[in-house]
């Protein structure tokens, strides 16, 4: 396996002014704060975490949709962090994104054909060739060819997401960031889109970063899964290993929070208590040491003083937690 996309110490700080008119200078929101991560060619890397943990920002940084504050992004072994707009353009063909909201992500004034062929035109394909590519893409995503003449409002949420997928794939990218691609869809339609993404991956040899908060969907589609908390990746492992043997207390709590699948599993009394209390802290002033220590059921004195480094927790399994002994050297 070789890494198609790599992040090294990747960081994104947003300047926010939340101090009111008396405070001086900007306050910094640490959305992504020193992430090392690699996405292997051909895999689906699931990325999970609560809202505000920085997972969408990380996805956008990796495909250079927004500038990073520090760190490096490597694509196919090449450092693309500082590439200018012109040098970046050929790389962009290979990196695309599918957005969460199929209603907001499509221009309501453009026909489906125009929407899907726009990326081709931008990258210099002639109109006639682009138009025939649109037909092929519609077949691939399971929409009738007649859809080309119609407008986004004529389609349901699931069909719109198919249009969004066609637009992302028309340039034959290698890497696609899927940012919560099914969470805005009706439950009975979600499975269709998940199956479509799986089929297209096999057919076109795609590599996915699959961002979602639904741990069931992530388990189904992913090869490996990374867990983020307040701008940091706290655990990453092969998916079966992560779900069967979560090592980070945060991962354990996330998995325990997933609703049961049958009423017979219902817990009563003290057993019923939710595994985590309170909200995710602010990324403007993240807790010292391990960022999870304010909510962690196993917190120790060292946790608030020292930030735990990533350490191996088994084969192809890494975790950032003081409970796990770091291996020397």
């Amino acid at each position, binding site marked *: 396996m070789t890494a198609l996309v790599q992040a090294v110490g990747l960081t994104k700080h947003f300047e926010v002014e939340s101090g009111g008119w008396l405070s001086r200078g900007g306050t910094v929101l640490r959305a992504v704060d020193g992430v090392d991560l690699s996405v292997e060619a051909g895999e689906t890397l699931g990325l999970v975490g609560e809202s505000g943990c920085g997972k969408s920002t990380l996805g956008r940084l990796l495909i250079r949709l927004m500038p990073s504050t520090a760190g490096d992004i490597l694509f196919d072994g090449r450092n693309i962090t500082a590439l200018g707009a012109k040098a970046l353009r050929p790389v962009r063909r290979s990196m695309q994104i599918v957005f969460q909201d199929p209603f907001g992500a499509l221009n309501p004034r453009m026909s489906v054909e125009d929407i899907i062929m726009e990326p081709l035109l931008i990258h210099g394909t002639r109109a006639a060739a682009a138009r025939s590519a649109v037909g092929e893409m519609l077949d691939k995503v399971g929409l009738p060819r007649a859809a080309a003449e119609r407008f986004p409002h004529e389609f*349901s949420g699931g069909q719109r997401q198919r249009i969004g997928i066609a637009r992302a794939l028309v340039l034959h990218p290698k890497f696609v960031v899927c940012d919560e691609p099914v969470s805005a869809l009706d439950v009975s339609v979600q499975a269709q889109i998940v199956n479509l993404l799986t089929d297209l991956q096999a057919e076109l040899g795609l590599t996915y970063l699959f961002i979602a908060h639904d741990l069931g969907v992530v388990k189904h589609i992913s090869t490996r899964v990374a867990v983020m908390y307040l701008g940091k990746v706290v655990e990453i492992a092969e998916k079966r290993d992560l779900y069967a043997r979560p090592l980070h207390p945060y991962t354990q709590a996330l998995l325990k929070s997933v609703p049961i699948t049958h009423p017979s599993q219902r817990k009563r009394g003290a057993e019923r208590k939710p595994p985590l209390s309170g909200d*995710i802290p602010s990324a403007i002033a993240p807790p010292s040491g391990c960022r999870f220590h304010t909510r962690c059921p196993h917190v120790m004195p060292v946790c608030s003083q020292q930030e735990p480094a990533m350490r191996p927790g088994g084969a192809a399994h890494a975790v950032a937690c003081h409970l796990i002994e770091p291996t020397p050297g």
Partner: protein
Amino acid sequence: MTLLSVEHLTTAFRTERGEVTAIEDISFTLDRGEVMGIVGESGSGKSVTALAIMGLLPMPPARILGGSIRFDGTDLLTLSDKAMQRLRGPGIAMVFQEPMTSLNPVFTIGDQIIETIKAHERISERDAFARAVQMLEKVGIPSAATRMTDYPHQLSGGQRQRVMLAIALVCRPRLLIADEPTTALDVTIQAQILDLILDLRDEFGMAVIIITHNMGVIAETADRVLVTYAGRVVEQAPVNRLFDEPLHPYTSGLLACVPTLEQEQDRLLAIPGNLPEPARRPPGCRFSDRCEHAVAACRDGLPPLDDFGAGHRAACIRALELRR
């Protein structure tokens, strides 16, 4: 003891394409202290049912074509606006999906809770303040007294939903309607809010209608379940029976298409097609054009909601045959 009984409720909305029904012939009863889950996706009519019970349907464009809603012996559809308003709060309260748009952004959360209390009770400002703080503590807002002066935008999504619950519960309603109360929230916060609703049910003995598209939320909370599709009830059953022995293909589909943490499969079982828009519902059984078991007879007429015993009803003409 029956607290709420909805019978043959049918409502319609005026649209550009003429009048279309939002819900048709919805009937169910709810006992004190019971949790009823209503499952449905967009356009199923689940929120319209809730708004009709609350007396909050915008009329026009909405219109109630028939049926009755009896709450504690009173027919709600014949109540005056004023009488209905008195009932909201101490009688029936509701929490909505969007905690941001449901709170007034220009008033503090304390003001909004106190306003609710004073709308229904003669109470001094000081006592109302104390009750509001107490309620915020109950729903798990830390340092409640100091948060009373916060505005909604200063709170996180989970905290806003807690405040919505505080407003809904401060007059001790006998019925709480929660419309997708956790859909906008993370799983960790969802677990907390569901736990809180069940705790308050145990403490106050209130009945709860929980509306959701998430079968996991139903599995966690409901005693009985109503499954709705395109404006009609397609199945109703006690919760264990529904999960063990679903009789309608739509219910089976919903249970099967969501990937769980336990199972592993190469492909998800998908329900083909899309939800029909109200003006484009297929003839006969509305699920027929997406149903793998549909036969010609399914398109002939609306299937009746047949009784299969033990409180289990399903509207599918092939239910008995498919059960095996």
